[in-house]
């Protein structure tokens, strides 16, 4: 999968990732962290880093007109993380319903490539089900096949 994405960096642990979003609102540093929350389960966290205050937020609407590139960069980080932690299960949930829907649209748009390498589950009415296109989900689980 070679979608346009930002160059991004990680540290030796492959748990933390950084990249810069570029657009009409300027350069915005984005950070991604895979946090272990259970034996093999990691939470995918993602937000904007304010380098002056050190605060990270996912509540800001950046409006940098690059959401597809940002999403593709996050997807690439998931790829890298699961290459290094092939048994990991990644849980992802947007900070709002519309952001979770954006994840769903990203998965749907690239389902052929994603489904070749990953099993994806969607959370619907408190139950996990295998991901299906055009279904609205509250969260996602991703696991390398």
């Amino acid at each position: 999968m070679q979608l346009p994405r930002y160059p991004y960096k990680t540290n030796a642990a492959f748990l933390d990732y950084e990249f810069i979003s570029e657009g009409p609102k300027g350069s915005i540093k984005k950070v991604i962290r895979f946090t272990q929350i259970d034996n093999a389960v990691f939470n995918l966290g993602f937000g904007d880093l304010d380098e002056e205050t050190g605060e990270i937020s996912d509540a800001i609407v950046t409006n940098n007109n690059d959401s597809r590139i940002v999403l593709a960069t996050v997807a690439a980080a998931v790829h890298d993380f699961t290459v290094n932690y092939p048994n990991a299960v990644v849980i992802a949930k947007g900070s709002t319903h519309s952001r979770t829907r954006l994840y769903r649209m990203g998965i749907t748009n690239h389902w052929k490539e994603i489904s070749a390498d990953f099993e994806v589950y969607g959370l619907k009415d408190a139950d996990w089900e295998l991901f299906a296109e055009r279904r609205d989900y509250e969260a996602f689980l991703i696991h390398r096949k």
Partner: protein
Amino acid sequence: MSTTAKHKAGTKNKKAFAVIDNNVGNYEKHPFFIKKANAAKALLKAVGLPKQLAKAK
């Protein structure tokens, strides 16, 4: 071997796209990510894992 190390076994034949840079921060203890992880833990506690994955884990 730690759990994290166990996850890293058997990964030598696949390629990462990222540039490895030790200046990238470690955000493990950042309150933002702690809060997100706790929310995810609570969600998992409530709904569990899919049966297929729970068996494998």
